[in-house]
Every structure is written in C-alpha cells, then in structure tokens.
C-alpha cells in the first residue's frame, strides 16, 4: 500500500527538516506511532500501536539524507509490516514557508496480520496521513496539537465520531492526558 500526502508549513525549510530528522518527534503528530527511539546515527527503533491490541515494533534505518531537502528510511530485519518512507522539503513560493511531501509504503502481508492492518487503515487510509500532517503543521506553527472539548485526544479525533459532546472534560477525563 502506498500513501502520499502534503502540507505547507509556515516555517523555514531548515527548521521543518530538522524537526522531522529528529525522528523521536514523529509520535507527537503521527497517529499510529507510540514511540521512535534513536539507536544510532542512522538507525532507530519504532513502536506502533497495533490494531489487535499489542504493539508492533521494528527497527529502521535512514537510507538517504540530503540536508534541508530529503529524508528516506526503511524498516530493517524481519518487520511484521515491512515499510519505507520518504519526505521531501521544498521552499514554498511565498519565500517563507516549506512544502512537505510525504510518501509511505507498507508491504502488507497476507494472513491475519494483513487483514488486521487493512482494517486499521480503514476505507480511506490516506486520511490518517493527512491528519498526521495537519498535526505536524500545528506543532511547528503553534507549538502543540490543538485540543477541543469534542476532540480532546488529538491523535484520535477522526476515529471517534460521534465525539464526546463539546462540553468541558470531567476531572477523570482530564487526567488521561492529551493522548488518552
């Protein structure tokens, strides 16, 4: 499965590139990622929340890096869902913003895992990536993922419809934090 998405962030290309290049930042805006841990100069360990309850983990390496232009990575070893990604950073015509073009490829296996992954992405898998990039833009432009009363759990907003009412959170709900 191949997904592409793009957004424009009103920040200089060096800053946008640097934020993405620090892969540990990815879970702040990517819906399915729990954690990315840098394990070496070009290697990292990724943890995603899986549709069937447990986490899926894999190692990845950066296979291409052109400063302020392009980052590409791919999973290594025998990942459950082998995957690869590339991001291109292009200065926007306004002279102050950066276009971010993302491409992801998932090599979805057959069998139960494959079915579960397909179900996880749903009928419109690109939406998840669109939403990821919206949050990416929010974090860079405003400093954090914006929460509302109806959609207080930033990374899950789209999946919860109907949402909780647009009415203040209870203390118990508040304690769950922004990524409940």
């Amino acid at each position, binding site marked *: 499965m191949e997904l592409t998405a793009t957004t424009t962030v009103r920040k200089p290309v060096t800053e946008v590139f640097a934020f993405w290049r620090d892969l540990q930042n990815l879970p702040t805006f990517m819906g399915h990622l729990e954690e990315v841990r840098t394990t070496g100069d070009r290697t990292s360990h990724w943890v995603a929340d899986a549709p069937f309850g447990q986490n899926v983990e894999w190692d990845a390496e950066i296979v291409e890096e052109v400063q302020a232009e392009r980052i590409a990575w791919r999973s290594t070893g025998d990942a459950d869902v082998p995957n690869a990604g590339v991001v291109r950073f292009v200065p926007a015509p306004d002279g102050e*913003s950066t276009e971010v073009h993302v491409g992801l490829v998932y090599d979805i296996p057959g069998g139960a895992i494959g079915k579960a992954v397909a179900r996880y992405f749903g009928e419109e898998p690109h939406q998840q990536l669109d939403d990821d990039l*919206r949050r990416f833009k929010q974090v860079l432009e405003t*400093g954090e993922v*914006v929460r509302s*009363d109806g959609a207080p759990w*930033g990374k899950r907003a789209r999946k919860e419809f109907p949402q909780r009412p647009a009415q203040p959170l209870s203390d118990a709900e508040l304690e769950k934090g*922004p990524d409940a």
Partner: protein
Amino acid sequence: MRANTWAGRNKVEVRDVPDPKILNSRDAIVRITSTAICGSDLHLVDGYVPTMQDGDVLGHEFMGEVVEVGSGVAADRLRVGDRVVVPFPIACGACAACAAGLYSCCENTNPNAGISEKMFGHPTAGIFGYSHLTGGFAGGQAQYARVPFADVGPLKIESDLTDEQVLFLSDILPTGYMGADMCDIQPTDVVAVWGAGPVGQFAMDSARVLGAAKVIAIDKEPYRLQMAEQAGHTPVNFEEVDVRSRLLELTGGRGPDKCIDAVGLEATHGSAHISAYDRVKQAVRSETDRPHALRQAIMSCRSGGVVSVIGVYGGLIDKFPAGAWMNRSLTLRTGQCHVHRYMKPLLDRIERGELDPTRIITHTLPLDEAERGFEMFKNKEDNCEKVVLKP
C-alpha cells in the same frame, strides 16, 4: 457550572456541566459576565448545521474576566483579572491564513479539520459552540469558557465602557462591518441590506459610517424595519411590496450599487410558492440552504456592483442565478467574519461615539432562561431583536 446546551433539534437546555480547564498551554479560562444569542445559533438549533451533538455547549458571543491563564500565555499579552471580549473564530495567529488576516480560515485551530475539508474543500477555523464541524469547542452561553490561543484573540477592554457597549465586538458588530467593508463603499453608493436582524442592523450602520449615500433595510418584521428606520435607514417590507420594483424605484431604476445578504440559509420568501419549493428540497436534503435573499440580491444589484454575503450558508443551494452574476459583471464577496481584524478599530469607533451597539438590545435575561430567550428570538416574540444573557 451552568451552561446552555444543544439538546436535539429545536431544543436547548441549561444544564450542569464540568467547569472548563486548561487543555493547551496558550488557553485562558474566562468567567463570563455577558453573552448573547445569535442568528447563527438558530441555524444550529433548527438543525441546519450537521455534526451537532446532544450536550454541546452553545454560544460564540461572550466576554468576561480572565480567571486563569496557561503557561504559554505571556503576561504582557493577558493576565488574570483582565476584562476581555472574545472573538468567535479561534485563530492561531501563526499560519498563512492568519498572516493574511483571514482569521476565520485559520489552518490550525480545528481539530476536526478533516471533516470540514470534506464538506468545504479546505478546512476552516475552530469556532466556539458551533458544531463539531468547526472543532467541537464548548461555547460561551455558560458561566465559564476555555479560550484557546488566548494570546491571539481576546481584546482587552481597559476603559469603563459597559458590557453592553462592547459585547458585540465578539461577532455581530465586526460581521456587519465586514459586510459593508467588502462592498468597497463610495460616497455615491446606495446600499441595500437584506435582513434587519442584529447582523443586518450593524451592516446598515457600518455602511453609513463608511459613507454610503443611502442605506435600505429589507425584512418582513415591522418592528425590525422600524428599528432600522429609527437609525436613519430606508425600510422595505418584502411581504408588502415587490422588492425588486421597490429597489428600482428607490434608485432611479439603477438598482442598489452594493447589496448585503444578512439573512443566510433560513430565508423566507414573499411568494409562498417559491418558499415551498425550497423548503421541500431542504427537507429532503437535495438542497441544504434556502437562498431567497441571495438570489434576490444578485438579481437586484446594479451591473458591476458588489454582492456581499455575511448570512451563513452551510451546504448546497439550488437555482443560483449564475447568468445574472456573470453577464452583469457582479462581484460576490463573503466569509465568516475575520473578527480579529476589526475588533480594535471598531472599539475605537464605539469610544468615539460613531457606532452605538446597544441600540439593538431588546432583552436581557439570566442564563438560566436561555431557552425562553431562544424562543423569543426565533419566533420574533415581544419585538425581540437581540437577547443578552447574564450567567
């Protein structure tokens, strides 16, 4: 706290809900001293805006006192104790839309941007108390409200103007003003305003302040037309006369130079036949909005004129007079108000006495009587023009 909530189509209910808390670092919590009911709330309550949910706190016109600020709000911008008016669109101040002054199209403040994008092609800003399509933010018909990006939106009131004088800076005064501003008014212009509700009244006053030669008010409610007339505008009752002919008469056959639609998607029509056509289509959802005022504005406007739309539309309309619009070189301008742009200049105009927003207030009720307020405002009972609620 007490808050007025959406309780299904045609039903609002004041309930106990949790007090709001800081969710993002640039939030503030405001203790509300005055809030109001808007024509937009009627669209929500009448069920014309999708994604409302039972329990949603309503209200997007409010002001009060800051009682808490998040760690990300700089003290030179806002502090506890400040008296503020809160603009209804939530804007981040940092995206390209905000940088261009298009605050109601802010790219970062709608957590449900994906849904808004599906409906509108591109997402729009978060709005208080205005459906989940615009983010699912609790509104301000309540004792307290959480205000995101509190360092961007709220306008501090440092003079001793009353709540009633400044409350409408939150929405309808800037909205009416933007309606006139988009008309690029010249001293020779005749400006016709469809709708003599609160928004229309302020569009008329703004057109006058911006120098229009004559301002015409079109509605069917005699008391609303009378209110406009008392403010110096020329009334036209669309249930009594044919609007287009009357407008031609009032403009020597030219048609108004500038036309403002301050009615929106629930317009009614003088002719029962046409009204029924749109009502049926609206009921079966093949048309979501009833655009009588917009159609009439386009047909009436002089060639080369401007039709400025501040009445709200939510979805699709039928029989849009594209031929008139195109062949007669009309300019169509519109938008949810970019309130942030207009608050300070309008505050100055209020202070100088050029605009008197209090003139439209007919009812002041305790928050607990919000339901009665909605009924009176919707059904035009007791000559109701604008209801202010006191939490």
